[in-house]
């Protein structure tokens, strides 16, 4: 505490004391304000958690209450029967998982060529990718649906995955990261006679692990959370992902509050856990994109 104001003149004890207590008071106010803001932001999530464990009678009482009076696991049991929930879960894992893995692979290959290799046409390809970054993807929805429908891929998970096997933002993001890497390692390997494929696999990819992790979470959460694309691609619950499936179910059974909240909670959990585990590098990744 006494270190808080090292410049205070010895002897002016009362003044120093007052300075410290004002500062302490300020920090208490700041902490309280911060926690109130944080809890307010989390209100829908907190309410979701409490409601998922409340019996239906407690949910519909008036006036509504936040904290549960009774505790039940019934909604978590029912959700697997009333909705093809296991199926939705599997579809979502397959969709988000496959898109993440394939896209990381293809994005990094393209980014390697654009950042580390000299060739004719490089600028044109890069400008093309920048232009794609500026265009809203919604414009592709109708023709894409039409195309996949004509080859029988609508209502299937592969049909959802295929158009997303690469991503213009992913290529751009990794290119920026690769550009900043030093040349020395690569040059040494080239002198030793290593081919480009080996350099990409054994030198560049291992160094790029933090960037790949950040981009991986971007891809995973974007596709896990996406609503519009899976909604268009699935005409029934069996082929939908979690967001599309829950939205479709809500459209038909709006009053099953507890069940919907239990399902929603289970659907949000993987992304939240994934995020909390690699939060630090994820936030750092956003920060660097923002500065460039």
């Amino acid at each position, binding site marked *: 505490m006494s270190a808080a104001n090292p410049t205070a003149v010895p002897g002016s004890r009362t003044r120093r004391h007052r300075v410290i207590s004002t500062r302490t008071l300020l920090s208490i106010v700041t902490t309280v304000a911060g926690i109130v803001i944080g809890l307010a932001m989390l209100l829908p999530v907190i309410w979701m958690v409490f409601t998922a464990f409340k019996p239906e009678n407690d949910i519909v009482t008036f006036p509504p209450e936040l904290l549960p009076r009774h505790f039940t696991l019934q909604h978590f049991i029912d959700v697997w029967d009333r909705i093809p929930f296991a199926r939705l879960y599997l579809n979502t894992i397959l969709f988000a998982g496959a898109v993440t893995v394939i896209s990381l692979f293809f994005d990094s290959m393209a980014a390697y060529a654009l950042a580390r290799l000299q060739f004719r046409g490089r600028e044109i390809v890069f400008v093309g990718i920048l232009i794609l970054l500026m265009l809203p993807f919604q414009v592709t929805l109708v023709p894409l649906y039409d195309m996949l429908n004509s080859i029988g891929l609508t209502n299937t998970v592969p049909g959802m995955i295929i158009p997303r096997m690469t991503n213009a933002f992913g290529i751009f993001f990794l290119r920026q990261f690769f550009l900043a890497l030093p040349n020395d390692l690569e040059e040494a390997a080239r002198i030793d006679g290593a081919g480009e494929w080996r350099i990409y696999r054994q030198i560049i990819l291992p160094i790029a692990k933090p960037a790949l992790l950040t981009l991986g979470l971007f891809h995973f959460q974007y596709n896990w959370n996406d609503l519009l694309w899976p909604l268009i691609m699935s005409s029934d619950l069996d082929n939908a992902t979690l967001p*599309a499936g829950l939205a479709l179910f809500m459209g038909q059974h709006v009053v099953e509050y507890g069940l919907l909240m239990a399902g929603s909670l289970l659907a*949000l959990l993987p992304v939240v856990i994934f995020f909390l585990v690699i939060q630090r590098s994820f936030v750092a990744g956003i920060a660097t994109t923002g500065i460039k």
Partner: protein
Amino acid sequence: MTRTAWLFLTPSLVVLIAFTVYPMIQAGYLSLTNYNLIRAAQWVGFANYRQLFADPAFWNAFENTVIYAVGVTPVTVVLALLLAIFLNRQFVGRGFVRTAIFLPFIVSLGIIAIAWSFLLDPNIGLVSYWLGKVGLVSKQGLLSDPHWALPAVMFVGVWKNVGFYMVMYLAGLQSIPGDLQEAARLDGANAWQRFRSVTLPLLSNQTMLVSVMALIASLQAFDQIYVMTHGGPFFRTETLVMLIYREGFQNLQFGYASAISWVLLIFVFLLSILQFGYFQRRQVRY
């Protein structure tokens, strides 16, 4: 070298051309035809665009989109800046607050919007009940009230993204050298003057980037609107993307929906060009 480079590019280029570039051009072609899934495409010239500009449903969606964007963008940016400044100081519990503000950005808007629509429900909704206590009463509930439905989905839009832009501002704040603030303090500048003359100008890069990103994202609003209001009541929350969805995938008017999507494309592209031009000019000036 050239051959190897193109081999590295091939998978991405094939996917981008087949599933992004080609569909965009195809949408342009379809917008000039009368096409639904059942009947083959018939060339109609600019009839869809003529119909579009005379269609009250289009102008309604356009107006809602503009109101949404003009309302949500500045509120999100200013809130993100205020929160970043608040979180840039040391205090107990800062990590929790930062995570709590950022969390809405990583959860599915389509899913969390289910919780929001229950919170705003006139019968069981906790937020509805609290709003009633402070005198803001809407009998049918905010989401069924033609005056309140759009502000309600806009509020959820701000709530969802503010943490993302806050992180960008935080990165900007942390890159400002401490001695600049110190120098201003020694010159007798108070907190507000330091903010106006030191912090804000040094954050202008972030402000520009964040504003354009927030604007472009808000022009594409869909998820929470689909879940909370489905475009209603009386189309009061129907945005351009909602209209594309309704015309394309509910009415199966593929030609007409493609025309609307091309209008959106041109709108967003022009804004992006403006952004690009602005950044180029700034780079010269500095």
